[in-house]
């Protein structure tokens, strides 16, 4: 399994993104590719900037993104994500390939971590990167730009974890949002594994806008509880009436990781109106994991 972690700077929020990514990746025995997406120079000046970069590398002055990747590499080492024989980070080992730069990390654990540098628009470059390898999950820091979160969740062909306000010292619970969507079962499995690794309790919530609960909702809810019971994961459950997004947010507060399936709504309507997972990820004060269905 492979996870893709998008970073843009060396701030505390980015460190949180890396920390949660490393924790979950450990739970799934997944590899991590860290991607830094920098500003792309205007096309009219692109070759001039490339020429300057070449001159600078002759003076051992490297792309600013490399510093960020180096920092991320060290952070992952400190989190214990890499074994003792972690490869050495050498800026001169940056290889240009397929419109991106990749750091060559020669030792065996170089397989466990990949460092990638791209330039351009965040969504475009993440999308291009997910097309080069089969990634299961993209982990990104939350953005103030709600439209950006919307696009990432709708257009990335992976599950997406939007990291907001993650605090390493807080005891998180997993809020598993269950409904009749195609991705729910997968979200339950993903959520359960995450909870097990974090040693967290799971709270299963199913919200109906109507007074009664449809058959699909109830079946999904029952299936989730059964699965958690079989997996011997501590859990509680609630069936709530009201607006689903409001209910999720109220329940989640800041000490939950919300896990939910990608919406089944028509893509066209989703583009203009959003969906439950999109609105939840935009408004939540805690990390939100939106899981893609089995067949994408």
């Amino acid at each position, binding site marked *: 399994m492979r996870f893709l972690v998008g970073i843009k700077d060396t701030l505390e929020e980015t460190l949180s993104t890396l920390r949660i990514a490393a924790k979950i990746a450990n739970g799934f025995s997944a590899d991590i590719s860290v991607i830094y997406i*920098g*500003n792309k*120079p*205007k*096309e*009219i*000046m*692109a*070759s*001039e*900037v*490339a*020429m*300057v*970069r070449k*001159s*600078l590398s*002759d*003076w051992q*002055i490297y*792309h*600013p*993104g490399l*510093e960020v990747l180096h920092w991320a590499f060290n952070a992952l080492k400190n989190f214990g994500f890499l074994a003792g024989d972690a490869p050495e980070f050498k800026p001169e080992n940056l290889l240009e390939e397929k419109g991106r730069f990749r750091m060559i990390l020669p030792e065996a654990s170089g397989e466990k971590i990949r460092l990638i540098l791209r330039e351009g628009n965040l969504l*475009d470059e993440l*999308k291009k990167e997910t097309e080069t390898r089969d990634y299961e999950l993209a982990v990104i820091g939350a953005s103030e730009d709600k439209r950006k979160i919307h*696009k990432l969740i*709708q*257009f990335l062909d992976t599950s997406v974890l939007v990291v907001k306000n993650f605090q390493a010292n807080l005891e998180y619970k997993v809020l598993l949002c269950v409904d009749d969507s195609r991705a729910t079962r997968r979200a339950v499995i993903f959520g359960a594994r995450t909870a097990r690794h974090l040693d967290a309790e799971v709270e299963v919530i199913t919200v109906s806008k109507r007074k009664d609960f449809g058959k699909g909702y109830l079946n999904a809810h029952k299936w989730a509880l059964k699965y958690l019971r079989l997996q011997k994961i501590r859990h509680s459950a609630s069936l709530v009436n009201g607006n689903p997004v409001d209910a999720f947010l109220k329940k989640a507060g800041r000490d939950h990781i919300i896990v939910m399936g990608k919406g089944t709504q*028509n*893509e*066209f309507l989703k*583009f203009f109106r959003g969906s439950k997972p999109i609105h939840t990820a935009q408004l939540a004060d805690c990390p939100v994991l939106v899981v893609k269905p089995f067949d*994408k």
Partner: protein
Amino acid sequence: MNDRTMRAFLYWVQEKRWLLIILMMGILLYWLPYPDSISVKGYRTFVISAMAISLIILEPIPLPATALLIAVLEVSFRIASPSEVARSYMSDSVFFIMGSLMMAVAIIHQGLDTRLAMGIIRITGNKVRNIVMGFTVISALLSSFIGEHTVAAMLLPVGLTLVRYASDKKPAPQLTAIILFSIAYGAIIGSIGTPSGGARNAIMIEYWKSATDSGQYLTYYQWMLMAYPLVIIQTVPAAILLGFVFKPEYKILDTPIRKLRVQVAKKGRITARESVAIGIFVLTLLSWVFFNERIGMGIIAISGAILYMATGLVEWKDISDGTNWGVILLFAGAISLGVQMKNAGTALWISQSIISLFGGLMSEIKFLPYLINIGMTTILGNIMSSSGTVAVLGPITLSMNANPLYMGMTTAIVSSFGYFSAFAAPACMIIYSSGLVKVSDFLRAGWRVGLMSILTTIFVIIFYWPLIIHLTNFK
């Protein structure tokens, strides 16, 4: 349509939204009733121009594709015949842009930056104030002859190495900013000094020839005579103004200078190869000054590039990899469009429309066309790029009711004042790409240096140009 196809389609739509909007705008403009004051051909050229400008600014498709689209539309809209359009794509100015870019690659390839570093250290010593002045002056001096991005490429490693040595113990963001800005702003100021300072200058020379009724031609020397005093006037104040904006953490860089000296000293004495490289450039420069009228600046630039390759100083592969061929194509397309704007009467129509906005003021204030020119060019130059601005605005400003020589020169000079944004001038983009300066720094420093540059330009237009034209009697 299944979900996956719909998602792919929606992604494409949101990716290409600007292209779709521009196409719709073009179709709408095309089907709107044409104004009586312009010919059908002229109006169609206007539609193409509006689309081309939008495509260049927003880059929804690769720039070379925009350049080729201009040719397709010119022929499809029956603005000119295929042969005419093909001819308008290649001129001495396009050769000049091509040759200059190739030479820039060849020069940077020689690693002369260490020599420059040594020169700067010798001149400036270790005081930060002097180092900033030294970077600005040397950057301006060099960029007037070899183009701003070449200079930025050679000086940035020197500047950043100094900053790195100075930031060993604690970060020095102000020092970093002042050194990087002195390189970029110096390069911008210098680039107005001669025709070889930037592609925009060559484009304007082409427009004088092809887009004015008199077929004006300005030699390399005449350009210098008109523009170089501005370089001299602006360089020192720019360095001083930067000192007001950024307060460096150190006043003296003793250890960093010593370390840099040790680093560059490892290269030893100047090699024969480096001497030949400098020799070829000096030869090219002298040819520009003395033979440009006879054989054209483009042919001289290309000869210089050939010499670099013939002497083995640079391989074709390096030139081919380092030259932005798409940009050459773009300028070729833009010049072609500019020529058609003049021929079809579009440039005149736009300039008359602008003039009519100001009514009687135009006849009362003789300097108003220049102020309008400066305003339009500064704004577009900071949104688009300096060369793109000249390519688009050149035919319009030359058609305004004022001296075409002054107007053209003003457009070429002011278009380079891309101080306010990180994305307008190559030198600014280059220092911004280092990741060490912020977009807001450009505004902070840019408005001061920009205002100073505009005021000195106005001074030169009013007092110096009439005087020099009177004294030398060139037209």
